């Protein structure tokens, strides 16, 4: 895709990793404003605080405070996961594909934690 509509084709799109594991959505896009040159996409933002900011900036600040207060930081080190645009492998009508492995990224912090601390302890799930 050469020309695209950033809102329609990129923002809010499903993000998948190199094995096509669904790993989140394009919750935000970061633009770099360059003098004399068109703005370029610097990075993709993913995470709840990015979404919170879209609802209201105060909600973002409040969520951040909550996070610090109740130290879930052992599970999730960063509240947002920022991927440089250079890691984007493909943008197609179906998804945005990144050249990463989902399981090794902060996008899967909760997924990994739930798997190891909750799912693994359910009887009948063989480890």
């Amino acid at each position, binding site marked *: 895709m050469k020309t695209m509509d950033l809102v329609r084709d990129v923002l809010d799109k499903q993000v998948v990793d190199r094995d096509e594991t*669904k790993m989140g959505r394009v919750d935000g896009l970061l633009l770099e404003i360059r003098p004399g040159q068109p703005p370029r996409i610097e990075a993709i933002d993913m995470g709840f605080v990015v979404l919170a900011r879209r609802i209201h900036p105060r909600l973002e600040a409040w969520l951040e405070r909550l996070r610090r207060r109740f130290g879930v930081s052992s599970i999730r080190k960063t509240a947002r996961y920022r991927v440089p645009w250079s890691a984007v492998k493909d943008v197609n009508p179906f998804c945005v594909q990144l050249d990463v492995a989902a399981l090794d990224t902060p996008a899967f912090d909760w997924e990994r934690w739930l798997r190891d601390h909750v799912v693994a302890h359910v009887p*009948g*799930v063989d480890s």
Partner: protein
Amino acid sequence: MNMKKATQLALGIVTAVGGFFDAGNLATSAQAGASFRFQLVWSLLLGTLLVIFLVEMSGRFAAVTRKALPDAIREHFGFTAWLVPFLVLTLVHFLVLASEIGGICFALHLVTGLPPAVWALPVAVLTWLFLWRSTFGTIENSTSLLGLLTLAFVVAAVRHHPPTGELLAGMLPSLPHHDPAKYWFIAVSILGSVIAPYLFYFYSSGAVEDEWDPSYVNVNRGIAFVGMGFGSLIALGAIVVAAVVLAPRGIEVNDYHQAAMMLTDAFPFWGFVLFAAAMAIACLGAGIEVALAMAYTTAQTFGWNWGEDLDPREDARFCMVYTAAILVSSLLILFGIDPLKLTLVTMAINAAVLPFVAIPFLLIMNDRKLLKEHANGWISNSVAAFLLVLALVLAVVSIPLVIMGGS
């Protein structure tokens, strides 16, 4: 049509029949028949016509774009626009799930005599276990085949030889002779129970799980028309039975106990147990679909990995959503909320939130860049536009009707 498609068609129809009839349909049909005989059949027919078109659209959308509705809606309208409908629908789904769990608990209460609240947690665990252990295919097959038990209502209706003239007259809307508030409350609740929002999110996600592609457009049409039509026949059966059995005795269904007598005339010995079994199965099937619809919607909204065919270790967050949903909604029953009242009010709320379903639907089905030649034609659009107008009316009138006619 090849063998796989034929199987899918048959299976889809059975699933649609099995998944259609639930606590909401049973409660509203029993009330309608007992209080107004055949006079509210038109509401069921109207709801059925609309749900056929909507289910067809959601399946067609999934087959053509390979995306389920919540997924596509977030991408299409953006997070901020989808947020409010998402939260409202999640809340409603939570009430529907509680209604289904309440239905199963009540059926068990009928057979065992133990109060429904006692059954809340065992039923929650059973429902959860079913979802945790099985794949999408097993869920489809088992609940739908067992769901055919609800055909008992149709058999009973036929055995009672209902007065054809009165039944046909009920197919056209007419003004009530008594209790207008109750009449319109039930009419709205029937619409809410037939056009249940979870159906579309579940059905389109299911189509993606079954890996439909554009060649399934016709299979989908068959499933929507035959499946939903047949499912509504069961609800019609329940109205007829209630009208013939309960109405002449002056029994108004204010409690599931009264509804439980519905099948005893047609099946003297087995009627009571049959009713309990049909109720439990119908509610279990629907409860599983609602819980999955919640998990699909949440996972797709945030872009998490999802799929009932995956091992819970691969989509832990998806599994946690239905786990939490089942657990929390069973608490409502555990705390002793009356399942029938909960169901009736929930169905009216279902009707009230229809604009959140109808508006994105109408817009997204007209996106020619996405759907190309499969975008809505003028027939589907007329029906969708009519639904939109109806939904807006329902959004305004349902809640006042709950207060005036719901008690």
